C-alpha cells in the first residue's frame, strides 16, 4: 500500500485553498471513469454525511451556582428529569427521557432542541441540603446563554449499517424503526448508504479518537468508541458482504449548533429521540482508502429483521442492498413491500456538501486520530444471574 498523502500535507493544501474535495456520492462516477489509482492521485478528501435518529444522545450542562448555592440531587428541565448525581450543578439530560407531564410527546430531545433554539427552559431542582450547600430547592428559568458549558455528548451515534425492520405478525407494531405494518406490510431502514461515514471507512483506517467532525452544524470530535461498538464482517455463499456494528461516541459545543442539523423526533408508541446530523471527512491517504469510499448502494448489504419477535436475537429474513431499499420497494418472502428510510438522504447529501465547502474554504482542518478505534470487539448481552 503506497502512501499518497499525509494528514499534514492535506491540511497544508486546505490552508492554501488548494484541497481537492468531493462527497462520497460524487466520488462514484469519478472512480468509474478514472479507476481507483488515478482517483486516489487526484482527490485529497472525500466527505460523508448522515442525518438520522440517534437515541444515545445527551447534553451535559453546568448551570452555575445560585445564591445561596445548592448541591442538586434531582433536577427537571421543562418537567423532563435530568441526571444530577455529578457534583453540585452539573446535570445530564438524555434524549429519550420522557416528560412527566406530556407523556411521550415531549422529552429530553425536545429540551436539547429548545436549548439550541435559545428558548427559555424551566428548571426545578431539589436537594437534602448540606452544611456547605444549605439550599434545598430552586425553581427558575435558564437558556443557552445563561448556562455555562452545554456539551453535546452522545455515547452511541452513527451506528454502522443498521438492519431493516419488518413485521410478520397480525398486528401493527410501534417501534424505534417507525410503524411496522402487519404481515410484511412495509419495511424501514436507517442509513445514508453510500454517503454514510462508517460505511465509507468500514475498517476504521482513518476515523478514530480525536477525528474532527461536522456535528450538528458545529465542529465536534470523536471522543471514544461508541457504546456497543463491535465491528463485524459477514459474508454469504453468494459473495455478498455485510460490514456492520461500529459506533462512535461524539462530543461538541451545543452553543455552536443549529436546529438545521439537530432535531427532536417522536416515534409513536416508542418515545422521543434526537436526530443528529454528522459529517466525517475521509482523507485519501492511500488507494486502499479510495477503494472503500467508492462503495455504491448496490454493494452495501444489510439484513432484514422481524421486529415482531420479542427476543434480543431476532430472526433474519434475508439480505438486501441499499439500491433496492432506496428504490422504494423490496421483495421479502416473495412479497413486494414498500420501504421507508428513517434517515434523510437529502439531508445527508446537504451535510456532505456543507462539509466539503468548509474544507475547500479552509475553515475545516482534518485531525489525525490520536488513538485508533478497536476493530475486534464482541457485543455482550445482559445475563440474568
Amino acid at each position, binding site marked *: 500500500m503506497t502512501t499518497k498523502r499525509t494528514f499534514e500535507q492535506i491540511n497544508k493544501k486546505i490552508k492554501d485553498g488548494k484541497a481537492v474535495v468531493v462527497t462520497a456520492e460524487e466520488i462514484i462516477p469519478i472512480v468509474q471513469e478514472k479507476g481507483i489509482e488515478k482517483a486516489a492521485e487526484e482527490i485529497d478528501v472525500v466527505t460523508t454525511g448522515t442525518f438520522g435518529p440517534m437515541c444515545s444522545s445527551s447534553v451535559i450542562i453546568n448551570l452555575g451556582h445560585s445564591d445561596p448555592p445548592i448541591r442538586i440531587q434531582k433536577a427537571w428541565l421543562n418537567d423532563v428529569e435530568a441526571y444530577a448525581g455529578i457534583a453540585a450543578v452539573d446535570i445530564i439530560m438524555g434524549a429519550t427521557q420522557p416528560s412527566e407531564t406530556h407523556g411521550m410527546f415531549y422529552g429530553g430531545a425536545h429540551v436539547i432542541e429548545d436549548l439550541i433554539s435559545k428558548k427559555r427552559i424551566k428548571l426545578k431542582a431539589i436537594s437534602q441540603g448540606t452544611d456547605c450547600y444549605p439550599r434545598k430547592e430552586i425553581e427558575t428559568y435558564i437558556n443557552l446563554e445563561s448556562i455555562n458549558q452545554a456539551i453535546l455528548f452522545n455515547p452511541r451515534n452513527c451506528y454502522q449499517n443498521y438492519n431493516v425492520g419488518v413485521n410478520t405478525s397480525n398486528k401493527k407494531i410501534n417501534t424505534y424503526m*417507525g410503524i411496522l*405494518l402487519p404481515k410484511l406490510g412495509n419495511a424501514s431502514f436507517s442509513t445514508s448508504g453510500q454517503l454514510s461515514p462508517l460505511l465509507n471507512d468500514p475498517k476504521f483506517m482513518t476515523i478514530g479518537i480525536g477525528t474532527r467532525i461536522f456535528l450538528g452544524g458545529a465542529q465536534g470530535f470523536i471522543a471514544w468508541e461508541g457504546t456497543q461498538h463491535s465491528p463485524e464482517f459477514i459474508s454469504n455463499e453468494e459473495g455478498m458482504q455485510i460490514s456492520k456494528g461500529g459506533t462512535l461516541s461524539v462530543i461538541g459545543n451545543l452553543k455552536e449548533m443549529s436546529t438545521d442539523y439537530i432535531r427532536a*423526533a*417522536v416515534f409513536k408508541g416508542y418515545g422521543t429521540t434526537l*436526530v443528529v446530523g454528522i459529517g466525517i471527512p475521509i482523507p485519501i491517504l492511500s488507494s486502499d482508502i479510495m477503494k472503500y469510499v467508492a462503495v455504491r448502494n448496490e454493494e452495501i448489504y444489510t439484513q432484514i429483521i422481524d421486529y415482531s419477535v420479542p427476543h434480543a436475537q431476532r430472526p433474519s429474513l434475508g439480505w438486501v442492498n441499499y439500491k433496492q431499499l432506496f428504490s*422504494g420497494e423490496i421483495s421479502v418472502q416473495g412479497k413486494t413491500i*414498500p420501504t*421507508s428510510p428513517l434517515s434523510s438522504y*437529502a439531508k445527508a447529501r446537504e451535510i456532505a456538501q456543507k462539509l466539503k465547502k468548509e474544507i475547500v474554504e479552509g475553515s475545516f482542518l482534518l485531525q489525525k486520530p490520536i488513538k485508533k478505534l478497536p476493530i475486534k470487539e464482541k457485543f455482550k448481552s445482559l445475563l440474568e444471574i
Partner: protein
Amino acid sequence: MEKLREIKMVRKKMILTFPPKIVEEPVTYKLIKEFGLWVNILRAKIDPSNGGKLVIELKGEKKQLEAGLKFIQDAKVDLEFLKQEVIWNKEKCTDCGACVSICPVKALSLNKETFKLQFNYEECVVCGYCVESCPMKAIEVKF
C-alpha cells in the same frame, strides 16, 4: 365514418363541511342525478347536531364539474380543497421518508433525484396514517 367525440374527464378531490341545518339535504344525490357526476365518498363524519364532513372525489366533464361545484357553494356547503385540510409543514419536514411506506395509496414518495418528499394530493384519501408515522410532526390533518 362517424367522428368520435373525445370526452375529457376532470377529477377533483375536496372536503365538504355541512352545517347542522342542511346535513340532511341530499347534496351528493343531486350531484349524481342532476349534474351527472361520478361521486366517490372517501371519508364521512356525520353528526346531526354538529353537521358533517365528507371527503369526496368528483369526476365528470369540465362543464358538469363546474356546475356541480357552484351548486355545492350555493347550497351553503363549505368547500375546501385538500391542501387546506392536509397540511404538510415543509419547515418541519426533514425528508426522512418515514411516511412513504405507511401511505396506503402511495400519495407520498421520495423524489428519485433529490430524495425530497413529494405529496400527491390527488391520491390522498385523508386516512391520517402519515400523521402518526411522522417523527417530526410535520403533517397535520384537520379532518
